[in-house]
């Protein structure tokens, strides 16, 4: 059954609010999604009924909190097709998850001249950790280019993968919406003797995720883009990799034993979860997974393909050559992320004008400055859609866009 955005909006309390006298037209879900009532309730319920620290107390509340945390892990594991719950490591966000791999697996396994392959469309979260290892270890960072349509250009892939130790690629571009051929890249990486990491931050909220089908060794994503709270992200990795990797941060929770002479680590995944974890946030993420499962990931994808198609048609028909929408032209090849330039007006100014009509879009480089350079622009405006958006939101965007002319077009 197709999604009904009107009834879905009723699940999101924030959709009731007005902005500058207009209804909220939230088109920035690639930055963070809004939160449905069940997720907000799960946070409140945790703090009101069983707040306590996990894996320590023997009393009832602590048992409930520990069970809720581990139940959330199991929900996430099932949501992404992980074969074991212990393969799900909770982190602060996707950035921390990627840094975890760079700092632990990377430091233990990479050395001077070892190639790490990323792409031109990566978010800074999947660029800077590798730049840091370049500075620290002298690894070689290689870049898979993109073509004019915003797809990865794989013509030179064999040469780029020659000798590679790790390939790390976004599953969906947060700027162009491009859905990358992850399985193909993973197979090529493995043939070349490299491991495959996937930044799935823009994928897990929108498409049914199966880490096994992806062929990945590491998958990082964040909770707050998939209806969950901020402050909770996930690193999934194959058990044997997690077992072999040194710990990340040191402290409580991640140890088996500590003496004056040293320490031994806890079992995975706790080995990587030093300190009191984000318990409420994990529970909230579990509720978000339940919510998305209730809607159905296949239905969400169908809805977004249709809405993306409508947005591309509407904006192109209305504005023709006055608008440039970056990325693939086929809705089936992309997510609901539309980066655009309008009449040469700076995106920051476009976003300012849209705000007056309650239309929220992101303006800027979207934490992808190398990609901006490839696209030949310093910034774009970006409208990104999710389960609560419908055609009326696209229409509101299209209408409000024309308001910019009054200021910037003579």
């Amino acid at each position, binding site marked *: 059954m197709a999604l009904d955005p009107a009834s879905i909006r009723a699940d999101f309390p924030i959709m009731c609010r007005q902005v500058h006298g207009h209804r909220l037209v939230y088109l920035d879900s690639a930055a963070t999604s809004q939160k449905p009532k069940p997720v907000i309730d799960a946070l409140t319920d945790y703090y009101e009924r069983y707040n306590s620290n996990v894996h320590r107390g023997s009393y009832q509340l602590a048992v409930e909190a520990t069970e809720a945390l581990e139940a959330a892990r199991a929900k996430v594991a099932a949501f992404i097709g992980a074969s074991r719950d212990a393969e799900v490591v909770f982190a602060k966000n996707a950035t921390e998850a990627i840094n975890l791999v760079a700092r632990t697996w990377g430091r233990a396994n990479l050395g001077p001249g070892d190639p790490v392959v990323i792409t031109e469309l990566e978010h800074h979260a999947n660029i800077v950790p590798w730049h840091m290892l370049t500075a620290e270890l002298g690894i070689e960072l290689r870049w898979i280019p993109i073509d004019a349509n915003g797809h990865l250009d794989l013509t030179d892939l064999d040469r780029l993968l020659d000798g590679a130790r790790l390939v790390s690629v976004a599953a969906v571009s947060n700027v162009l919406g491009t859905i990358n051929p992850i399985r193909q890249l993973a197979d090529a990486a493995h043939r070349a003797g490299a491991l495959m990491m996937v930044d799935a931050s823009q994928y897990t909220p929108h498409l049914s995720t199966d880490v096994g089908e992806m062929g990945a060794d590491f998958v990082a994503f964040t909770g707050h883009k998939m209806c969950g709270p901020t402050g909770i992200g996930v690193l999934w990795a194959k058990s044997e990799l997690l077992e072999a990797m040194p710990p990340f941060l040191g402290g409580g929770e991640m140890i088996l034993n500590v003496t004056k002479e040293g320490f031994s680590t806890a079992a995975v995944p706790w080995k990587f979860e030093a300190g009191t974890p984000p318990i409420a946030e994990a529970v909230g993420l579990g509720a978000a997974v339940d919510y998305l499962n209730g809607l159905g990931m296949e239905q969400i994808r169908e809805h977004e393909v249709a809405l993306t198609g409508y947005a591309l048609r509407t904006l192109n028909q209305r504005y023709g050559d006055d608008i440039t929408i970056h990325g693939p032209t086929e809705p089936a090849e992309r997510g609901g992320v539309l980066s655009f330039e309008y009449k040469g007006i*700076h995106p*920051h100014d476009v976003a300012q004008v849209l705000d007056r009509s309650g239309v929220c879009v992101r303006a800027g480089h979207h934490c992808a*400055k190398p990609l901006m350079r490839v696209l030949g622009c*310093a*910034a774009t405006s970006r409208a990104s859609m999710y389960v609560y958006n419908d055609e009326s939101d696209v229409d509101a965007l299209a209408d409000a866009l024309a308001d910019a002319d009054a*200021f910037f077009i003579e």
Partner: protein
Amino acid sequence: MPDLEDLYREIILDHYRNPRNRGELDTPPAVRAEGFNPLCGDEVIVYVRLANGVIDDIKVGGQGCSISQASASMMSATVIGRTTEELHRLNHAFKTMMSIEPDPDDPPPANGNGADIKLGDLEALKGVVKFPVRIKCATLSWHTLTQALEEAQATA
């Protein structure tokens, strides 16, 4: 919400459409400084040439939103021909107008905080204060000029 007309005053849009002192200067004798607003990718490049403590010439490059680029243009038109001492006062007056907290490392000028100095066209940027996110756009070129002058004084 404050009116967009407060932000996009005609004089600002004029500087945006017809930027003054756009270009480059030879370095040396001029110095060059780059400023970035990591939030939105605005970029301002300032070339400044000093002669006997006076801003002899200034050119501005870069790209960004209307506020950052108009502010850079307005700044260039205002500071050309001024002494560095006047500039110091102007800078303080401008940042006071933009509600920027005083920098403890950069005490206000001895002869007052610059509040008496006439800001002229720069007054048009006052409306930006009502849009707090945009204040950084308006002050970027001033920070970059300060950087350039520090460089000039370091190499002098």
